């Protein structure tokens, strides 16, 4: 179905699923002779919040960057709704990084940066809405780089949301934040999810995963160990490594890999 490229807000929620399902087939990625993503295949629908978990170096961030098109696979294919990862598909994705990249502008102007296609009044209205949901209205004129870490990350999420993505990738968005900041970030993520946006999130915070996840993908040694609904995963992970991870035990296999 054709849609005007600019008018994200007019999009029906039902239309959201159009770049899904995501299908990954025999995906591999190597760098300098090391295979970091090893023959991964899976399928994902455009609903809910999916959490990627796994030890450091397991390949979560790499996998996310491959799905978003920031990295090119060594072999294998990624299709979104049957389409390759082209410009139009990528335009309907957004990503938030562990360390928020703040433009050297005010909080508000960081949002306007991605809203250039909207005419003045519509842009103003959208900025208000995004600032309000991110609870940043009172510091809209503050230079973004002077905001606290939590505020910066909320601004980064609001900015990603401004593009009306069908899917939002978040790479450890609340690592190193205190509980209150983490809570505020999670609130905002739920908000974006309520828009109808699929959330794919990397975290090491088991509590956060329990609070947010609809389903969990556990990555280990460049492979997908298990992909289960959240309740089932936390009760009975189908992978030995995942169980060790959840219980805070060392998994020697995972260590070997490092």
């Amino acid at each position, binding site marked *: 179905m054709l849609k005007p490229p600019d008018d994200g807000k007019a999009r029906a929620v039902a239309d959201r699923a159009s770049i899904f399902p995501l299908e990954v087939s025999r995906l591999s990625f190597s760098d300098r002779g090391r295979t970091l993503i090893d023959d991964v295949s899976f399928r994902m629908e455009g609903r809910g919040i999916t959490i990627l978990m796994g030890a450091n170096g397991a390949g979560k961030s790499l996998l996310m960057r491959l799905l978003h098109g920031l990295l090119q696979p060594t072999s294998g294919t990624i299709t979104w709704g049957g389409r390759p990862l082209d410009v139009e598909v990528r335009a309907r994705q957004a990503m938030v*990084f562990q360390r928020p990249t703040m433009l050297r502008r005010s909080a508000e102007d960081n949002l306007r940066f991605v809203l250039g296609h909207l005419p003045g009044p519509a842009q103003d209205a959208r900025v208000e809405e995004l600032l309000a949901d991110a609870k940043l209205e009172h510091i809209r*004129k503050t*230079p973004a780089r002077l905001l606290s870490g939590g505020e910066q990350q909320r601004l980064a999420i609001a900015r990603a949301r401004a593009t009306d993505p069908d899917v939002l990738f978040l790479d450890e968005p609340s690592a190193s934040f205190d509980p209150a900041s983490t809570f505020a970030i999670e609130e905002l993520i739920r908000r974006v999810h309520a828009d109808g946006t699929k959330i794919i999130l990397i975290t090491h915070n088991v509590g956060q995963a329990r609070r947010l996840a609809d389903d969990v993908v556990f990555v280990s040694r460049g492979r997908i160990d298990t992909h289960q609904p959240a309740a089932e995963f936390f009760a009975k992970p189908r992978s030995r490594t995942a169980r060790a991870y959840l219980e805070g035990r060392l998994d020697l296999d995972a260590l070997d890999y490092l």
Partner: protein
Amino acid sequence: MSESGSIFSLALGLVLSGDAELWSIIALSLRVSLTAVALACLIGLPLGAFLAVVRFPGRGAAVALLNAFMGLPPVVVGLFVYLMLSRSGPLGVFGLLYTPAAMIVAQTILVTPLIAALARQSLADLHGEYDELFRSLGLSTGATIAALIWDGRYSLSTAALAGFGRAIAEVGAVIIVGGNIEHVTRVMTTTIALETSKGNLALAMALGLILIALALGVNAAVLALNRTARRLAYA
């Protein structure tokens, strides 16, 4: 010692006397060099940003060339522009030789490589920081360059100031293409050269002091403006 003291008081006297000729020379110097720097920024900043952002075969050579051109001898640039603008040259029909416009052209050519090279260095760092975000947003090369220049504007103002310093201080290019014509193309540096050749060394040195004060003033003004703007709105 007493001589340097008298030079200083001579310089002060010149400024305080409000000598109309001196002021018109100062005004022309500023007009020519500031216009040249503005033009050089218009060309050099996008060029530097382009080289910071885009990978292409021969990019290393282009950067090396640019760095080498930072040290272009003004007299060579002057000669080149003279040959272009001379009535016998390819652009002679415009009759620009011996006008301030010719001096602006020469200084623009002189400082563009400097500004572009400095811009490339500072924007390469900024680009490293923004790269993943911009690629995630699917930003075009043009939009990336524009955003880098805008966000890097405070550090880029240093590049512009370096360009201004080089432009306002050079004599080799403007004396060839401007001709040092009284009331038309005579600027601070060519006046200093002229007074030196007349043996008026004290007057020449006093004019030199005024030139230094002028450059200092422009620098201070830009830096102060920068700091205020940064404090008021951005970080």
